């Protein structure tokens, strides 16, 4: 995801060269993995029944666009992911903002939030299926349960970041509580909030797919489970690659949207 940072400087002599090298290394790594994979199957070092083949995976990747995988399942997964992401981050943001206002409550609740956040919450998937059934609701609930704590903790961290100098400046300028919030606290919290959103998006995809894995009739997770059970490894990898491309694309989109808010972060890095 760091390629955009070099790409942004395309047009400047030395950076273009650097970007070129970075892309060269990146493609070499991908090529090396593909070659090893192909080698393992060509020389019968491993059985393609278990690991598939690059060629087969590529074929299935193209073919799946005409199947229910892309026309139906992808839609389910995307809807669950985005609904859970939107609700989970919104609730997390609200809870975090509320907790950031009151130091006593925050200090009381923080270890509990951290504990909840370090629980492997995807293991709650079977519970949500009992509660909400095999449809999309259980998956959305799972996504919310994962994303809520990530976002709440990031919001608290962002809004309560201790910067005594900035606090002193606000006081000596005579800033009101509202001015302090809008001119000092919220802009200062933006990088942390953006980082929370980006992390939440990736985890949203992950938890939606795991939710589908555990039970249901639609979604990429259901298909993955199916292909693994029937040893259709090429199809399995084709779905994984599709998922990786979409997740990366959406994360980049989110970064692009947030770049304005955190532009000064990038310029900080340029200076070093």
């Amino acid at each position, binding site marked *: 995801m760091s390629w955009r940072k070099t790409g942004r400087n395309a047009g400047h002599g030395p950076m273009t060269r650097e970007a070129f090298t970075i892309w060269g290394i990146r493609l070499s790594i991908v090529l090396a993995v593909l070659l090893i994979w192909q080698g393992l199957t060509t020389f019968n070092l491993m059985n393609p029944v278990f690991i598939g083949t690059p060629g087969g995976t590529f074929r299935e990747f193209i073919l799946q666009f005409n199947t229910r995988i892309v026309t139906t399942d992808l839609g389910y997964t995307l809807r669950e992911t985005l609904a859970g992401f939107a609700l989970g981050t919104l609730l997390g943001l609200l809870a975090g903002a509320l907790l950031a206002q009151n130091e006593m409550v925050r200090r009381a609740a923080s270890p509990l939030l951290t504990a909840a956040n370090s629980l492997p919450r995807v293991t709650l998937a079977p519970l949500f299926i009992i509660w909400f059934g095999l449809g999309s609701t259980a998956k959305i609930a799972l996504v919310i349960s994962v994303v809520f704590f990530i976002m709440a903790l990031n919001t608290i961290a962002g809004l309560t970041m201790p910067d005594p*100098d*900035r606090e*002193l*400046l606000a*006081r*000596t*300028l*005579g*800033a009101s509580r509202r*001015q302090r919030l809008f*001119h*000092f606290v919220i*802009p*200062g919290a*933006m990088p942390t909030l953006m980082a929370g959103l980006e992390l939440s998006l990736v985890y949203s995809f992950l938890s939606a797919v795991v939710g589908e894995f555990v039970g249901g009739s639609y979604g990429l997770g259901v298909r993955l489970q199916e292909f693994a059970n029937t040893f259709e490894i090429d199809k399995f990898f084709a779905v994984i690659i599709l998922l990786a491309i979409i997740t990366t694309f959406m994360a980049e989109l989110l970064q692009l949207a947030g770049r304005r808010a955190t*532009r*000064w972060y990038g*310029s*900080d890095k*340029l*200076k070093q």
Partner: protein
Amino acid sequence: MTVVSPSQHGLDTTRGVDNRAPHSQPTRRNATAGLAVEAIDVGLSPSHGIDILDSISLSVREGEFVAVIGPSGCGKTTFLNAVAGLIGITRGSLRVRGDLPSPGRPDSAYALARDTLLPWRSAIRNVELALQIRGVKKTERTAMAEEALARVGLAAARDRHPAALSQGMRQRVALARTFVTHPTLMMMDEPFGALDAQTRVLMQDLLLSLLEDSAGTLLFITHDLAEALVLADRVVLFSDRPARVSAQYDIDIARPRRSQDVRRDPRFVQLYDEIWSALKNELA
């Protein structure tokens, strides 16, 4: 680095003529009768731990530049923060232009060693911040901020973010932010403490030119004795913690001043030695 010339107001007749001109020699910003800051027996004893301020009695006249020096950790900054209304005192009486100290007075400004620019705001928007907080309208504050940036020689850097400015430039933006509201009481806590020696000298000259142009009063903390002598009309020496005023010195060096000229002044050398030996006693 562009430094605004200090000699634009036709008062440089005193310079170079008689470097030992007494402090009472009339200058435009000469002290008037009123007191900007009046501290009488000010003490601060925290509820636990040792006392910070023992008993500070110190008056700053209107238009006067006063430097406070003293051993590290002696309570200089604490005293300044009490004047700024950032912390309370436990004994004595402290008045700022007759009022109890309170932060964010419209006639005052406070500056720190670290420039504390907001990294997400461009230079001009950082300068505007002080006006924005006071509710000055957008067009008016942009014009005022542009003027302030020009006075510190940074008109061309108006749209650059702090990360893209050098330390000296950042400090000048902070200085523009301090002066943009046209404060008449300035409190500075080691304003150039974080700068390298050369930049510090340039900043002292810039500050002199800004100050000598205004009718303002300056109370500042420093542990650079040379800086105190270059900038101040009076140097106040604090004792080791808990702080008392251990001595005061009138710096009778003519204005307008320039850092390198002042340092060559025989009176500077004399005062430096005198105050330094007193300071050394406090350190011992």
